[in-house]
C-alpha cells in the first residue's frame, strides 16, 4: 500500500532514507493510490503554521529549527505545485503546464536554499534528483504548450523566427539554469566525503546533459566536464558511485566525444557504459550501441556480430546491410545502404562515421585482389610468398566488380591510382605505385593490408 506524502516524509526522516523522502516529493500518484497528490492538496491550506504542525508536531518528528524551517518552505511551495497539477487534472480554467512549471521552480529554489544554507544534509540528496527530474519534464511540457492568448497578442509584432525559437524552449532554458545551480551545489560541497553532496555530481550532470542535448547546446556540456575535471582531485573515483549515475554519464560523455569526431575516446566511454549497463535496460543498451557500432567501424574496423545485434531488430536493420557490403567490398551496395538509411543516420548523427566504412569496403575489395593473386614461386624450400607486385589494371577490374560496372563503361586508371594512393595514405594498404610500370608494389611479410593477416 502506498503511503501518503506526509507518511513518506516522516518515514524518510526516521529511517534516514533519502529515497523514501524523495518519494514524498514525487509529484505522480502511484497506481495503488491515484489520489495521493489530490489528498495532499486538499488536506492543507498552504498556511505555514498549519503545514509545520502537520509535518512535525503531529508526527512527533524532532529536527533542528533551521532544518524544520527549510522543509516547511519546501513543502509550502510543493503544496502550491500540487495545486497546479490538480487543477490541470481537473481541467480548471486557466490551469496550464506553464503554471505547474513556475510552481515547481519555486519548490526547486526552496530546496536549493535549504542546501545552500546548510540546513539539509547530504543523505537527502535524492530529493534534489527527483525535483530536478520533474523540473525538466514540466519545463518541456510547458514549452510544448500552445502560447496563451495574452502572450500571442503581446508578441504580435515580434513574430519572427528568432523569437519563436527562443520562446519554444524558454522554460527549459530556465530549468537548465536552476539545474546548473543544483550541480554547483553538489560539486562545491567541502564537507567530508561521507556526508558530502559530491555524491550528487553525476546525477545532476546527467540531468544537465539531457537538457543541453534537448536544447541543441551540446557545447555547454563541455563546461560541466571542465568543472568536473578541475575538481577531480577531491572526488571519489567513478566506480564508487551507483551505476545508475555513472552509466548515463559515460554514455553522454561518449556521445559528446562522438559528435566531436573523437571516436577513440568516444569508444572508450561508450564501452564502459555498455559493460556496466543493467542487462535488462533494453532501450539504454540500444542507444549505447547506436553510437558504439560506428565507433568500432572507424577506430578498429570491426563490425558487430550477429549475436550482438540480434536482440535489437531496429539496429540490425539499421547496420546490417552496411556491414554486409563492407565485408564483401560491395561499393554499390554500400552507397545504396547509405542512401537508404540516410534519414535515420542523419537524425542519429551517425552519418559521417558510417560513411568512413566505404574506405574499409574498398580496402576489402582490393585485399581480395591481392589474395586472388596467389603466391610467387618459392625458392630453396622457403615458405611461399604472396605476389606483391600487382598490376594497377587488376585493381581497376576489381573496381568494375565493386561498382557493378556494365560492359560499356570505362574505368579511368588515374582514378584507380587515386583510390590506391588514398588507401595507402590512410594506412589501410602498405606499398607504393610504380607509375612507369603501372604496378602496385605491396609490402611483404603479411603487412600489405595491415591488421588483416596478409
Amino acid at each position, binding site marked *: 500500500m502506498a503511503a501518503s506524502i506526509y507518511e513518506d516524509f516522516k518515514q524518510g526522516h526516521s529511517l534516514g532514507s533519502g*529515497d523514501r523522502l524523495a518519494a514524498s516529493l514525487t*509529484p*505522480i*500518484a502511484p497506481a495503488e493510490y*491515484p489520489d495521493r*497528490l489530490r489528498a495532499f492538496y486538499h488536506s492543507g491550506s498552504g498556511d505555514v503554521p498549519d503545514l509545520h504542525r502537520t509535518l512535525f508536531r503531529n508526527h512527533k518528528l524532532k529536527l533542528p529549527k533551521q532544518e524544520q524551517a527549510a522543509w516547511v518552505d519546501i513543502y509550502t511551495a510543493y503544496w502550491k505545485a500540487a495545486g497546479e*497539477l490538480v487543477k*490541470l*487534472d481537473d*481541467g480548471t480554467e486557466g490551469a496550464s503546464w506553464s503554471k505547474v512549471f513556475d510552481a515547481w521552480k519555486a519548490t526547486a529554489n526552496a530546496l536549493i536554499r535549504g542546501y545552500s544554507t546548510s540546513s539539509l544534509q547530504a543523505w537527502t540528496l535524492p530529493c534534489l534528483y527527483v525535483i530536478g527530474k520533474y523540473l525538466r*519534464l514540466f519545463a518541456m511540457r510547458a514549452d510544448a504548450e500552445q502560447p496563451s492568448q495574452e502572450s500571442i497578442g503581446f508578441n504580435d509584432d515580434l513574430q519572427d523566427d528568432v523569437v519563436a525559437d527562443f520562446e519554444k524552449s524558454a522554460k527549459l532554458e530556465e530549468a537548465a539554469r536552476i539545474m546548473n545551480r543544483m550541480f554547483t551545489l553538489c560539486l562545491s560541497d567541502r564537507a567530508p566525503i561521507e556526508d558530502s553532496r559530491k555524491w550528487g555530481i553525476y546525477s545532476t550532470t546527467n540531468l544537465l546533459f*539531457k537538457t543541453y542535448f*534537448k536544447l541543441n547546446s551540446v557545447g555547454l556540456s563541455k563546461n560541466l566536464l571542465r568543472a568536473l575535471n578541475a575538481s577531480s582531485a577531491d572526488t571519489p573515483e567513478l566506480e564508487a558511485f*551507483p*551505476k*545508475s549515475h555513472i*552509466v548515463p554519464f559515460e554514455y553522454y560523455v561518449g556521445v559528446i566525444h562522438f559528435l566531436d569526431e573523437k571516436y577513440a575516446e568516444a569508444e572508450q566511454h561508450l564501452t564502459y557504459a*555498455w*559493460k*556496466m*549497463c*543493467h*542487462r*535488462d*535496460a533494453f*532501450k*539504454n543498451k540500444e*542507444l549505447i550501441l547506436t553510437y558504439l557500432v560506428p565507433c568500432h*567501424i572507424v577506430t*578498429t*574496423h*570491426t*563490425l*558487430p*556480430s550477429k*549475436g*550482438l545485434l540480434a536482440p535489437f531488430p531496429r539496429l540490425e536493420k539499421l547496420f546490417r546491410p552496411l*556491414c554486409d557490403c563492407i*565485408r*564483401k*567490398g560491395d561499393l554499390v551496395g554500400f552507397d545504396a545502404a547509405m542512401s537508404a538509411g540516410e534519414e535515420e543516420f542523419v537524425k*542519429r548523427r551517425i552519418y559521417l562515421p558510417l560513411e568512413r566504412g566505404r574506405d*574499409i569496403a574498398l*580496402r*576489402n575489395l582490393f*585485399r581480395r*585482389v591481392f*589474395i*586472388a593473386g596467389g603466391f610467387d614461386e618459392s625458392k630453396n624450400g622457403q615458405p611461399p610468398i604472396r605476389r606483391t607486385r600487382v598490376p594497377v*589494371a587488376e585493381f*581497376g*577490374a*576489381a573496381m*568494375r*566488380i565493386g561498382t557493378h*560496372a556494365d*560492359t560499356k563503361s*570505362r*574505368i579511368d586508371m588515374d582514378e584507380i591510382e587515386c583510390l590506391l594512393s588514398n588507401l595507402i595514405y590512410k594506412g589501410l594498404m602498405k606499398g607504393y605505385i610504380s607509375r612507369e610500370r603501372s604496378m602496385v608494389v605491396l609490402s611483404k611479410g603479411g603487412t600489405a593490408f595491415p591488421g*588483416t593477416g596478409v
Partner: protein
Amino acid sequence: MSNTTQSTNQAEASQQPQQQKPPVLEEDDEFEDFPVEDWPQEEAEQANGNNGHLWEESWDDDDAGEDFSKQLKEELKKVEASKQ
C-alpha cells in the same frame, strides 16, 4: 483515473524495462532513468553470457576464392580492351 495522473504515471512506467508503453513525458531518443539505483556486477551487461563474441573482423576470407578470381579475370579483359 483522470488525465494528468494517468499521463505522468505512464512516464514513470516507461522507465521500467519490462513495460513497453510508449513514453509520454520522456523523449523517444533519450537515455532512460534506471528503475533501481545500483546493481551488482552479475546484473551488468558485462556478465551477460553471450558477451564472448561481440565484434567481428570486417573482411570475409571465405568467399574470396575461385569465383572472385574468375570474375576478376573476366573484368580484367574488359579493362585491357578499353585501354586500346
